[in-house]
């Protein structure tokens, strides 16, 4: 039986962690993710979980401790944001290449500098090539649901990769909203026990992370890439099982009113909710608009996205990060790359929005759809755009 509750995103994720009861949580506080280990350490102190809580001296140490515990066969998780994720950088690659299914709640926050505590996606987007699976969510419900599913995705025998569960700092992490929680026993049954194929401990202990020179390094990377490809299928399998449990449907991305859409938007996290409201309003005015919300950014669902965008005339790709490539931002790059050769004549502009917590309103989003219709009509448009910035 589901329980109807009102919780903030951070509370929801901490509660998911309590229900999962991991072996080890090693964490270092940073706004806006601090509450996750804070609430969890209370569960530890109250004896509501049997987890070992390791209060470390930095995020680099947090990820190092997670790697050690996961290599020993444990189920391991942590949380961080912004510069905390940046300080984990070296160890992110170690976790992924050692094929350790650590689960990390990334409460998205702008990277310094200038120093800023508010939401954008520069932290997790910077780590997009670290070999971690990245799952994004729109609200507290999705943060909770994704966190539970992440355990099963990362630990699947065909995957064995760490997973970032990303949700927006403050907007999702600190806002109280309605959501449905599973019963403790349901979560326990859903996640089961971790079965590590290799471990530092036990009957057949192995060494992990040794020197790997030209004779084998390339093959190991090739296997890692294959694991990421496998994750796509596993994400869908786990989602199907989760839907049976909860009735809530998840995929690689969510399609909202895309059936006959002429103008669409591809977007990530909380602003997708704001944009859905705009889609409803414009649909009521007879305008054929739709939206795709990316859930799995790594692995990137390129072919599926091409199919979903087959009939649109124009699609705006929304990035809450710049990327500083001198051309397009990360999601815009991925979508355009996916559409190459499959999008004759499609209009695919990118919009960078909301950096450092700049608020994004329904009017901002409506202006993007209006740009798309103007582009369809005239054929004229800017490819690279900034939304809501003072020039």
């Amino acid at each position: 039986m589901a329980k109807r509750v009102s919780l903030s995103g951070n509370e929801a994720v901490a509660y998911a962690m309590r229900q999962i009861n991991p072996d080890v949580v090693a964490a270092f506080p940073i706004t806006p993710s601090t509450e996750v280990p804070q609430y969890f350490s209370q569960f530890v102190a109250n004896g509501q979980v049997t987890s070992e809580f390791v209060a470390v001296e930095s995020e680099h140490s947090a990820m190092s401790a997670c790697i050690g515990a996961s290599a020993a066969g444990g189920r391991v998780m942590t949380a961080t944001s912004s510069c905390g994720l940046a300080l984990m950088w070296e160890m992110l690659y170690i976790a992924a290449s050692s094929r350790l299914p650590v689960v990390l709640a990334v409460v998205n926050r702008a990277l310094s500098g200038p120093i800023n505590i508010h939401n954008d996606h520069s932290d997790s987007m910077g780590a997009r090539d670290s070999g971690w699976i990245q799952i994004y969510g729109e609200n507290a419900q999705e943060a909770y649901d994704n966190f539970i599913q992440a355990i099963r995705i990362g630990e699947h025998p065909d995957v064995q990769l760490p997973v970032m569960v990303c949700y927006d700092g403050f907007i999702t992490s600190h806002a109280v909203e309605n959501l449905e929680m599973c019963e403790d026993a349901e979560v326990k049954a859903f996640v089961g026990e971790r079965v590590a194929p290799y471990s530092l401990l036990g009957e057949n202990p192995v060494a992990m992370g040794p020197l790997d020179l030209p004779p084998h390094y390339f093959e190991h990377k090739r296997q890692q890439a294959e694991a990421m490809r496998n994750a796509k299928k596993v994400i869908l399998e786990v989602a199907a099982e989760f839907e049976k449990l909860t009735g809530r449907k998840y995929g690689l991305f969510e399609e909202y009113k895309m059936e006959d859409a002429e103008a669409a938007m591809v977007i990530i996290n909380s602003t997708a909710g704001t944009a859905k409201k705009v889609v409803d309003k414009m649909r009521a005015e007879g305008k054929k608009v739709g939206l795709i919300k990316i859930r799995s950014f790594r692995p990137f669902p390129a072919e599926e996205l091409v199919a979903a965008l087959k009939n649109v005339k124009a699609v705006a790709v929304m990035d809450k990060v710049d990327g500083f490539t001198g051309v397009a931002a990360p999601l815009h790059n991925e979508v355009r790359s996916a559409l190459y050769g499959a999008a004759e004549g499609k209009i695919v502009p990118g919009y960078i929005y909301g950096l450092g917590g700049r608020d994004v309103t329904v009017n901002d989003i409506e202006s993007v759809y209006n740009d798309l219709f103007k582009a369809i009509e005239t054929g004229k448009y800017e490819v690279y755009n900034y939304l809501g910035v003072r020039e």
Partner: protein
Amino acid sequence: MAKLVEIRWHGRGGQGAKTASLLLAEVAFKTGMYIQGFPEYGPERMGAPITAYNRISDEPLRVHSNIYEPDYVVVVDETLIKSVPVTAGLKKDGAIIVNTSKTPEEIRKELKYDGRVYTIDARKISEETLGANFPNTPMLAAVVKVSGVISEEVLLNNMEDSFKHKFANKPQVVPKNMEALKRSLQEVK
């Protein structure tokens, strides 16, 4: 009631405006409504102006932006009227509630707003019932009374449960908080 009610809170760090917005969300949630309660965070320091928001609806809430055209504005600290545009975007058929010892007619002169103006002396109520200045409980009662977003009876029943839970270690303060709520429902004008 309308399908969506949007409320903006203005207070100063440490006065409990954020807590009040979360309490309102909690009470409305218990009546089965969809709720959002969220603060606009800045550098957090005692006394600095802060803003918090509520959306309350009988339909799922999806918009995740701040609120620019609220139905109601609650001003927990009247000195903010001079430094913060508290009535910005406030709907004409909405209302503003100010914590002050002044009358609505007096405070109206300080506001750029033609709609309904309510006042409540939350400081006095709080000091007389709770023995200290905790304005958020009286302000919560005032916004419920003025907005009608939930009934007074539902507020009182739910808050008694919340207070009993919150003050499990000092049950003697529960009746005082309930008195503050009841007086506030009477004294908002």
